[in-house]
């Protein structure tokens, strides 16, 4: 996304400068450093607002949804209709609250803990693509990076629980640690399946491999992936510490769990981090299983528009449409999490761990094995049987970043065959340098 913003900024610079000077190109040359700094700042601001404004929206949604589920209205008055300013009023209240630090607390760690969780949640969004190429920082192994960073988020409740100097907080922290560390195992097994199907850990590649009709989405790839999505979603709910897995903040037994001693703005940072990571895991689910930024029907392809020669503005327009798609899917995921929260009762700690170790982990392992075997024997997916758009060849948006099909890299044996065949027909000259210069494909099928 940095590139797109930077191009936009450059155009803006030149347009502005053209009012004052004759030759803006000389004043603001191509790849102007300030453009990159500004682009970085704009991206940071945008992502920060995904967490902050997202939390504003999600907390309002949570109130309305819980109200409707419990046959109430939820907030109705603040901000006119629908109570849509309720969260803002809450925020004002939180800012105005007294900021307490208990006497027994480790003041330094107590102050630090909320920001750690917020930073981890923000860093996960940094590598999460919002559309084709619209990503704060394009990491080659972005899926792995996001998992690693989300695993660090648990550090914040642990530090908070320890530093509060209260046994309720410490109980909550230890529970959360046990839960999150356990659920990382089945979650890791679940996310590996789309990686195996696609052959890349780059979320952009995974998303683009599911372009076309919705039958291309990995959730509809085969029965195993369909089942494994639900395990992923269960583990995702547990890993962001939402009900029915919110043992760490069980009001009925632990006062408020790890944030018992927090008040005001520090407390709200925990919740911004929670809603931020809810969005992140839902977005991850959208990319891994639901085609990411691709709509269910390839509209642009149907209009006869595909390929990359449509200029800058149409490309960004298509990306913006993809971004809307992606955010819609992620918000649906968050909504389902809220639905689950207000429907199911809270589990006991032993039930939480049993669910993870006795059900989720073996199921995930078995389904993973099944999906991998289907992939290994080239079992036709549903989409291969139906006369649909082939995956990886169609892009809904006009931007084409990735090469559609990975080039088959030849192993030693295949190469030997190829060379012996060559020897009969053509002079076989494939020098080492040519091989080294040939473009690397990610995860090419061996």
């Amino acid at each position: 996304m940095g590139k797109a913003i930077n191009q936009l900024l450059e155009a803006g610079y030149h347009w502005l400068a053209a009012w004052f000077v004759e030759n803006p190109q000389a004043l603001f040359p191509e790849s102007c450093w300030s453009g990159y700094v500004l682009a970085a700042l704009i991206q940071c601001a945008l992502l920060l607002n995904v967490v902050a404004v997202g939390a504003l929206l999600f907390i309002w949604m949570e109130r309305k949804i819980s109200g409707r589920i419990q046959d109430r209205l939820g907030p109705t008055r603040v901000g006119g209709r629908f109570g849509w300013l309720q969260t803002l009023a809450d925020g004002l209240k939180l800012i105005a609250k007294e900021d307490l630090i208990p006497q027994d607390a480790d003041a330094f760690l107590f102050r630090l803990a909320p920001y750690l969780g917020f930073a981890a949640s923000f860093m996960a969004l940094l590598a999460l693509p919002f559309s084709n190429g619209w990503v704060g920082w394009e990491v080659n192994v972005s899926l792995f990076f996001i998992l690693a960073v989300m695993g660090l988020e648990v550090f914040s409740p642990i530090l908070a629980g320890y530093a509060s100097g209260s046994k309720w907080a410490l109980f909550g922290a230890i529970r959360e640690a046990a839960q999150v560390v356990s659920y990382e195992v089945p979650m890791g097994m679940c996310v590996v399946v789309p990686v195996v199907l696609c052959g890349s850990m780059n979320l952009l590649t995974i998303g683009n491999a599911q372009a076309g009709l919705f039958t291309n989405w990995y959730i509809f790839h085969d029965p195993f992936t369909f089942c494994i999505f639900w395990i992923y979603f269960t583990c995702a709910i547990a890993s962001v510490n939402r009900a029915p897995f919110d043992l760490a903040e069980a009001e009925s037994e632990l006062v408020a769990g790890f944030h018992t001693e927090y008040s005001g703005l520090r407390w709200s940072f925990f919740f911004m981090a929670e809603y931020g990571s809810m969005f992140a895991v839902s977005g991850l689910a959208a990319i891994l299983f639901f085609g990411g930024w691709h709509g269910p029907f390839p509209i642009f392809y149907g209009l006869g528009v595909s390929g990359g020669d449509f200029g800058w503005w149409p490309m960004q327009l298509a990306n913006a449409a993809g971004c809307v798609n992606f955010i819609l899917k992620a918000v649906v995921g968050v909504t389902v999490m809220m639905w689950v929260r207000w429907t199911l009762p809270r589990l006991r700690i032993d039930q939480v761990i049993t669910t993870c170790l006795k059900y989720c982990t073996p199921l995930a392992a078995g389904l993973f094995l099944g999906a991998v075997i289907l992939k290994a024997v080239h079992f036709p997916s549903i989409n291969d049987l139906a006369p649909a758009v082939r995956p990886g060849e169609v892009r809904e948006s006009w931007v084409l970043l990735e090469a559609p099909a990975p080039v088959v890299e030849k192993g030693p044996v295949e190469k030997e065959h190829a060379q012996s065949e060559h020897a009969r027909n053509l002079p076989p000259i494939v020098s080492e340098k040519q091989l080294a210069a040939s473009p690397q494909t990610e995860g090419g099928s061996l």
Partner: protein
Amino acid sequence: MLLAAINWHSFFFLFFALLACGFAVGVLVSTNIVRMAFYLVMSLSATAGLFFLAGAEFVGAMQLMIYVGGTMVLLIFGVMLTARERFIDMQTPGGQWVLAAAAGGLFFFILVVNAFQVPDWSTPNPHQDQLSIAESKTTTQIGAAFVGVRLDRPEADNATQRAGMSGYLLPFEIVSVHLLVVLIGAAYLARAKRRVDQPGS
């Protein structure tokens, strides 16, 4: 322009290196074990930042996952649940400081001497602007090598030469089996002792 003249790569390298070293010193001077663990986590994260800066994204993410995450788990289950008063607030005696400084200083000396003996590392690369980090970014090669295929050496034609290039499958398997043994052993040691009901009692 002043800002344009700065070599941002060097700037961020120094930034992350200083963070890593500073927090490492913090681990040394702190007496509270939870703060120590926190400084260790920050120091290891800054090292991950160095990896990301060098373009080794997979290694960086690994560093975050294993070292930073692993330290955290160690902290929670190893230290916080078992530590007594003496370890929560650790006071290092003077003799240990001297011993540790001698051992650490010796290793540091060896490291520095060896590092400066590599001629390539003490002079800047003349082709710096032509360097590309794109190739180091993919994990395909190392991943394939772990399952026994060396993608970087497909050119060896005859089977005898290929035999020596079969990747790291054997060491990988040995390490995996070793880890499995350790896991089973740990589970065996940590299992709850079942009470045997004596028939007479």
